[in-house]
């Protein structure tokens, strides 16, 4: 009910409907409608309806007129048991505090979810009623449908393995920055539909990340290049091959003038092909570049060892981990495995535990920072001084000086050093890619001093076949381009015109090459400037191979023939080597046959086994000796380029679209980024204190000036960000976004705002130079344009309210309602049952409704271990992929209409500076006393005999009562026809076992009931019961950390029953007596007792 009586009176505002009668707005004029506001002061009205209304129904109602019922609701503030973490972040208090000291108006996103806006053009109440009446009158007709004719089209010759209706799984690998992760891809009748991790691949062990999960959408992306283009005109592959043949003939014998630009190449077979090319043309040049390169690690290894190495981390062996600005749980080589190894040291079985301890030094709050027991907030340039201080404290002599660091108190550094030295051989120091080489070298030196090498990490030869400093590699290419040495430039993937360092002026240099060939998935900025554009084959469309983070070779096996006639990189190179016509399959297979990997075994048999397993057995790289060269310790500390009160800018790869290569993937665009929970955007991230000091507010559209260049973007207040620093994420602000699908999405206009320019982020590459790729080497000026930028962030949507009393602040409610249960290790030892809330167990048996009897059959339950969840979002994308969840676009996300069935609620505790951060994945709770079920007027949501809250889409009429009544806010409504019914290529990515929901239908998580039913049928046909762990929900299977468990709670020996028997097990909103089947295992932190706070 509106609190503003005027809003209910159509005359008090301009009528928008044509039939609205305009009358003089005098007080005496008769009015058409009398709202409760008008009655609220009439004692006789209230007396007659005593007890009917609650406080909240009557705005400003005098309390004395309301009697029983209202005050009977106990005040949870009074009854709540005092908890050790009483200081839960209260935004309200902090706002006050900040606004007093600093000119701080509003903290972070808008305060609460926007109320749904009116329809596109605004709609009058009368029109609404008319439409409603017409809808009601015709609604019944919609049921009178006769099914349309359907055709069955069988094969002419049916492939042997295919059983229509049964999916097949193929092992393959996806390569990210030269590092492969093994996958099992589900295929329905030849269509890849779902990505799972390959349990036999060392880089996955069954886990995945957001990019792996979402990559399947790329196969079907209607915006992908679909034809060979020559100077923008449609051409053909044959013509391309012919011209390459001519070019080859025209090239000098030595091949001078032939240049090849690729991304990071680690594939042995592809490298062999390039080597073959280089042998044919000895003067040809091969350059590698991708914007989120690993140059720092490369140069850091050269500093420390005099040669590049690959470092393999074994987080499961480490008791104490220090991360120097490394987000190793969700990015970098082997991050999927890192998350698994790391979380294996966060498991607590009963009271048995062997917890590790993580210290993180970082600027921008990341998933890894959220898992840290001590998060040390500092500007990126201060990490070096911290690393030097730490190195000195563990006894490494630094002749170059330790520098002065002020970010971390001396005692803290000493305490961390003591912790590390206590755990010699069981500790680990890891440096992040944003950090300069010296920090990487210091990390190597510390690991050596702590005797960790060979225990918690080891070195191998590099994964790349030709490791280079990619920035320098591209610089050489640009120099040669400018010198006119290049006659033929072949670019394989990547997008250097968009993402090369801005000081290279790559676009103008590129145009100096007479013939430019670009092979890529999209007709992007680079493709537009090249003569030839070859549509590339997606990784699920072509053969290949690549090493895992430890060197184990994974085979990339195609799932489908190129959907849009794409050509693999092998084929493009083959046109130059003269092997055109040899299939990619033969090249890859031939390479491994020639390597003699089968060791005497029949190669065909060996190859079949390899393809089945997805990995070449025993190809992990051996440990390589890497003696430390101590010269770099002489280096003096780097001088600071940025004064303490100036802004220091850090660039980072975006958590969901990476360097921009996933910009067209709308699944990834729409998942909320970890911690900030923004969708569809990047932002100028800064801490609230810095913003306040500089008179900036959340959403201010500001111009960043740095190095004589400028871009504009919106300010986002990131809680936990370092002060006097900003972070910008790469990948947005594309000049060419081939996203017709996104454009037609409801409310999604990919174009430009008249005032603001692009409405989907800004291009941070426009400020990024080759000399300072990650940390700006000079201060950034920030000028407020006075305009406002809208972010679609979901942090303040779907709040779990406090007994209906809305608070703006989810964290306040989280505290009151004990949504996140946390204890330190000491507290846990004293009271393992800390998460149990006594008062909520009392009325367990009370219910108005008859209890269900789940008998001895299946009773499904799910549990989430908050100690393990790293908040990476893989479960969210897995759920989208498995359950055909629609994308709604930025505008609709902003209105609170994102459709994700599982969300990662993020809570902060303990101040804006270095709050503790908690992730809480929240799917449907599948309550045994489900509030949603009782209110459905049409029986569309019902209780299953196994305890699921079933959702029958075809029955749903869209009253949304269920969603209103859901205390966990897990139901999602199709306000528009969000599912794409019109783009044929997107039919392919859908899971055929899940209904595609239409407009006006409520939907929600049902524990992947299609998987449950498939397992039930399978087990019944085999005359057995479903085995423990036989069913994995999509979120569980995707989780790299193993934080989700699902199974039959009636089976007391099952994993899920054991999880739920843990003392840490607790229920959300237990006081409501909904008895959810989804429960949580409380978080136990392991802070260093020597460090206060």
């Amino acid at each position: 009910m509106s609190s503003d009586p005027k809003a209910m009176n159509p005359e008090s505002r301009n009528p928008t409907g044509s039939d609205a009668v305009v009358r003089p707005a005098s007080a005496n004029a008769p009015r058409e409608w009398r709202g409760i506001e008008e009655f609220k002061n009439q004692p006789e009205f209230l007396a007659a309806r005593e007890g009917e209304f609650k406080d909240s129904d009557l705005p400003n109602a005098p309390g004395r007129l309301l009697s029983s019922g209202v005050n009977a609701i106990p005040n949870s503030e009074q009854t709540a048991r005092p908890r050790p973490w009483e200081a839960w972040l209260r935004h309200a208090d902090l706002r006050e505090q900040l606004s007093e000291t600093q000119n701080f108006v509003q903290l972070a996103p808008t305060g609460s979810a926007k109320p749904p806006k009116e329809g596109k053009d605004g709609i009058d109440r009368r029109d609404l009623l008319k439409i409603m009446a017409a809808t009601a009158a015709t609604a019944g007709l919609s049921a009178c449908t006769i099914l349309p004719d359907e055709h069955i089209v069988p094969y002419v010759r049916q492939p042997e393995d295919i059983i229509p209706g049964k999916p097949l799984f193929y092992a393959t690998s996806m390569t990210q920055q030269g590092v492969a992760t093994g996958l099992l891809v589900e295929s329905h009748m030849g269509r890849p539909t779902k990505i799972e991790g390959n349990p036999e691949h060392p880089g996955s062990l069954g886990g995945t990340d957001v990019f792996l999960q979402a990559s399947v959408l790329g196969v079907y992306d209607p915006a992908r290049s679909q034809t060979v283009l020559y100077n923008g005109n449609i051409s053909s592959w044959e013509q391309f091959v012919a011209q390459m043949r001519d070019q080859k003939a025209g090239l000098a014998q030595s091949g001078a003038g032939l240049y090849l630009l690729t991304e990071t190449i680690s594939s042995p077979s592809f490298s062999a092909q390039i080597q073959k090319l280089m042998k044919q043309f000895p003067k040809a040049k091969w350059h590698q570049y991708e914007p989120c390169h690993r140059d720092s690690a490369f140069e850091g290894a050269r500093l420390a060892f005099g040669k590049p190495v690959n470092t393999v981390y074994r987080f499961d062996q480490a008791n104490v981990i220090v991360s120097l600005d490394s987000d190793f749980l969700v990015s970098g080589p082997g991050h999927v495995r890192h998350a698994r190894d790391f979380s294996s040291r966060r498991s607590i079985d009963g009271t048995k535990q062997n917890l590790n301890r993580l210290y993180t030094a970082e600027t921008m709050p990341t998933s890894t920072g959220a898992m840290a027991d001590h998060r040390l907030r500092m500007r990126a340039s201060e990490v070096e001084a911290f690393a030097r201080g730490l190195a000195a404290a563990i006894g490494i002599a630094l002749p170059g000086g330790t520098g002065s660091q002020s970010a971390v108190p001396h005692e803290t550094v000493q305490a961390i050093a003591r912790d590390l030295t206590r755990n010699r051989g069981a500790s680990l120091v890891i440096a992040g890619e944003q950090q300069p080489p010296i920090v990487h070298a210091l990390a190597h030196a510390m690991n050596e001093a702590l005797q960790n090498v060979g225990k918690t990490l080891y070195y191998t030869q590099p994964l790349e076949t030709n490791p280079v400093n990619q920035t320098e590699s591209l610089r050489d290419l640009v120099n040669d381009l400018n010198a006119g040495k290049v006659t033929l430039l072949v670019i394989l993937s990547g997008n250097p015109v968009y993402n090369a360092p801005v000081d290279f002026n790559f676009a103008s240099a590129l145009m100096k090459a007479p013939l430019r060939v670009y092979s890529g998935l999209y007709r992007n900025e680079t493709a537009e400037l090249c003569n030839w554009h070859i549509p590339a084959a997606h990784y699920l469309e072509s053969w290949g191979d690549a090493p895992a983070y430890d060197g184990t070779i994974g085979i990339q096996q195609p799932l489908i023939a190129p959907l849009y006639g794409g050509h693999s990189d092998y084929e493009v190179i083959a046109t130059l080597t003269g092997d055109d016509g040899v299939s990619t399959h033969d090249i890859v297979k031939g390479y491994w046959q020639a390597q003699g990997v089968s060791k005497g075994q029949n190669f065909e048999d060996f190859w079949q086994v390899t393809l089945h397993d997805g990995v070449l057995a025993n190809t992990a790289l051996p440990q390589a000796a890497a003696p430390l060269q101590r010269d770099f310790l002489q280096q003096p500390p780097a001088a600071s380029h940025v004064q303490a009160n100036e802004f220091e800018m850090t660039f980072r790869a975006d958590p969901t679209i990476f360097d921009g290569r996933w910009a067209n993937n709308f699944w990834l665009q729409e998942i909320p980024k970890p911690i900030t929970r923004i969708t569809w955007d990047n932002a100028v991230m800064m801490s609230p204190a810095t913003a306040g000091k500089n008179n900036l507010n959340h959403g201010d559209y500001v111009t960043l000036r740095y190095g004589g260049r400028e871009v504009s973007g919106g300010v986002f207040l990131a809680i936990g960000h370092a002060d006097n620093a900003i972070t910008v994420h790469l990948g947005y602000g594309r000049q060419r976004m081939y996203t017709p699908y996104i454009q037609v999405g409801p409310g999604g206009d990919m174009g430009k705002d008249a005032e603001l320019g692009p409405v989907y982020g800004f291009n941070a590459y426009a400020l990024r130079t080759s000399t300072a790729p990650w940390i700006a080497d000079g201060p950034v000026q920030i000028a407020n344009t006075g305009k406002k930028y809208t972010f679609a962030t979901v942090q303040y949507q779907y709040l779990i309210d406090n007994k209906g009393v809305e608070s703006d602040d989810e964290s306040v409610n989280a505290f009151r309602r004990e949504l996140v249960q946390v204890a330190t290790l000491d507290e846990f030892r004293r009271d393992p049952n800390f998460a149990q809330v006594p008062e909520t167990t009392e009325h367990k048996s009370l219910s108005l409704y008859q209890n269900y009897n789940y008998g001895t059959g299946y009773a499904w339950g799910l549990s989430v271990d908050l100690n393990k969840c790293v908040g990476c979002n893989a479960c969210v994308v897995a759920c989208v992929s498995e359950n055909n969840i629609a994308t709604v676009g930025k505008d609709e996300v902003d209105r609170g209409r994102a459709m994700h069935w599982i969300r990662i609620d993020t809570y902060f505790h303990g101040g804006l500076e270095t709050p503790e951060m908690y992730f809480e994945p929240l799917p449907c709770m599948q309550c045994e006393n489900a509030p949603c079920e009782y209110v459905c007027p049409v029986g569309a949501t019902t209780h299953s005999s196994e305890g699921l809250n079933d959702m029958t889409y075809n029955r749903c009429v869209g009253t949304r009562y269920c969603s209103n009544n859901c205390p966990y806010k897990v139901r999602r409504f199709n306000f528009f026809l969000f599912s794409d019914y019109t783009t044929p290529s997107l039919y392919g990515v859908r899971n055929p076992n899940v209904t595609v929901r239409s407009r006006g239908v409520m939907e929600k998580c049902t524990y992947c009931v299609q998987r449950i039913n498939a397992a039930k049928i399978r087990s019944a046909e085999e005359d057995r019961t479903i085995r423990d762990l036989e069913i994995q929900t999509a979120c569980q299977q995707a989780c790299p950390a193993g934080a989700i468990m699902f199974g039959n709670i009636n089976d007391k020996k099952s994993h899920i029953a054991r999880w739920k028997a843990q003392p840490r097990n607790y229920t959300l909103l237990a006081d409501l007596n909904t008895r959810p089947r989804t429960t949580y295992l409380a978080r136990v932190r392991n802070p260093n007792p020597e460090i206060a706070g």
Partner: protein
Amino acid sequence: MAQVFHRSSNLISKLSIVAIVILIGVLTYGLYQVEESAWYSNIGLTRQQPVPFSHRHHVGELGIDCRYCHTSVEKSAFAGLPPTETCMSCHSQIWTNAEMLEPVRASYRDNVSISWLRVNELPQFVYFDHSIHVRMGVGCTTCHGPIASMPLTYRFGTEYMSWCIDCHRQPAKNLRPRSEVFNPYYQQPSAVHPVTYNGVSYTDQLTMGRQLMKDYKVASLQDCDTCHR
């Protein structure tokens, strides 16, 4: 004041109340009949197919087992429609020049699938699984009718939800021994045609059905998620 209505109006008004009740009843019954009718539910309707395939000939007269063509009926949700290759396994030998079979030969020759019109069709929000029904002792003809005597295939049941749920509420009414599932001439046990199962001769469907439910572990599944996901 004079009376406006004549006394006889009383009768008319009473009768009209009765008439309205009857009318509502008739309309309801009428609508129900329309819904159940072949006109609306397509029961008994044969469709124009690319090839006039006769189950009566292949099943009834030649005695080909269901599974020769519908190969995945015991393994998958989809019973499977034979690839052209299956047709040609015989028709490359017999009736090789029949005019009627030209679309089949063309398909095999040109590698283009034959596009059949669906006869038995469920809405896309219903997930029916053949394999589990066959495994639990639901015979082909229980749903598909007297297939062995259908010259052209037609729909036997309404395929409405009520039609499904009738059986799901009381599976015993329709179960048969697994050995009889693919028997197109199977008749439910009666005094005249007793059915022998497990060495016992049954003359009553319900008795045998209950025994089969026990033996085959058939549950009466009525959760929404059994069919709707």
